[in-house]
């Protein structure tokens, strides 16, 4: 983004990159009049891509001679199945698709982070520029998981499911008992209520914030690395900074490969573990 003078300002560059393409800019910390279009579009596109691939595999499912793609998908399903089998006390219909969705979708959304940070936003600015849009007000954030709405949205679903599973497996009274007598026994009921409430709320919060934090930080580091040659003209310094940027970018990219996979995996495993705990009845302990 060296075409404008404004882009050469590091703070403005980063802020521009961290702003979503939205119906309007949010005015408070929770503003439900705002819709982040880029988040929705990219997550939906990636979800659609996953389902498209899945359908493609599904067209030619073979028992004896699976295609490479089918084998890969089978490995994935087996992998998720293993995770569930290790944790879940009872067979369950929902947890499998849920865990697989979390892993694949979150991984796909995370993987958007691997695209060069300026690629899609620049393209988008260029396209809208053709229609006379002001490039300073064209925003695009391509990684849905660097958005708090996405990660907390997923976490909220998991939280609701935790409640549902608790009610299903323990009954309302059993679940209430958990709040009253856990973890310190019947003589510390007020403490227990506070502790258990915090524990239950911390699950979705930590789930959502962990993913968000990791991906947001990753994105930010990419932006910082991009700053190295931001707006640089041709000069002697470029011979030092440019190779350095390439090296740093490569290093962070490789490291980030690990991060995005790990975060998707952690989100999935924690989802399974939380729901497994919720699904466990008193006699499972």
């Amino acid at each position: 983004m060296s075409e404008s003078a404004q882009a050469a300002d590091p703070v403005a560059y980063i802020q521009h990159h961290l702003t979503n393409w939205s119906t309007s800019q949010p005015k408070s910390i929770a503003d439900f009049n705002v819709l982040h279009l880029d988040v929705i579009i990219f997550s939906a596109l990636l979800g659609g891509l996953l389902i498209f691939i899945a359908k493609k595999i599904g067209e030619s499912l073979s028992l004896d001679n699976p295609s490479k793609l089918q084998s890969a998908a089978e490995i994935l399903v087996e992998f998720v199945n293993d995770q569930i089998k290790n944790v879940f006390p009872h067979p369950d219909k929902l947890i499998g698709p849920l865990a697989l969705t979390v892993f694949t979708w979150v991984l796909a959304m995370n993987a958007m982070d691997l695209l060069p940070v300026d690629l899609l936003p620049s393209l988008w600015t260029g396209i809208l520029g053709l229609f006379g849009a002001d490039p300073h007000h064209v925003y695009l954030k391509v990684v849905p998981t660097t958005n708090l709405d996405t990660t907390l949205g997923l976490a909220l679903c998991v939280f609701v499911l935790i409640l549902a599973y608790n009610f299903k497996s323990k009954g309302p009274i059993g679940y209430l008992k958990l709040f009253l007598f856990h973890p310190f026994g019947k003589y510390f009921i007020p403490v227990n209520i506070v502790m258990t409430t915090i524990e239950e709320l911390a699950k979705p919060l930590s789930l959502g914030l962990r993913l968000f934090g990791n991906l947001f930080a990753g994105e930010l580091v990419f932006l910082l690395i991009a700053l190295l040659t931001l707006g640089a003209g041709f000069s002697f310094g470029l011979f030092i900074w440019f190779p350095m940027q390439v090296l740093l970018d490569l290093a962070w990219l490789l490291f980030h490969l690990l991060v995005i996979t790990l975060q998707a995996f952690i989100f999935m495993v924690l989802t399974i573990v939380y729901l497994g705990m919720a699904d466990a009845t008193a006699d499972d302990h």
Partner: protein
Amino acid sequence: MNITLTLIAQVLAFSIMIWLVNKYMWGPLNDVLDKRRQKVAEGLAAAEKGQQEQEVARQKIEDELKQAKAEAAEIISQAQKRAGEIVDEAKNAAVEEANRVKAAAQAEIEQEVSRAREGLRQQVSSLAVAGAEKILGKEINAKAHAKALEELTAQI
């Protein structure tokens, strides 16, 4: 970093994704995996069964071979016995025939001998009569001396 309506949108999107993933990814792939597992198990079972059947068949072949060998030996020994019997029978028959031929020959000889003797006897009696006629010079009444002639021929 704000919470917006996007949260609700993502909750909806996530729910739809779970449904879609279940329909197009989890469901079919798990089906395939289950079916394959079943097929492999069936294949292994069939292989096991095949091996057992082969073992049984081998056993059967061995048994039948043994039985066939025994039968063959039996047949051979019977044949040998029968051959011996046939040889014996033939020998006996030959001996019998020889005896029979010999007996017939002897009987014929004896018959010839007695016939010759009979002829001789009659010739002797007529010679004796002729001799006696010549000696006596007169005819002997054969009828009157028949008794004496018969006694004579019986003596010869």
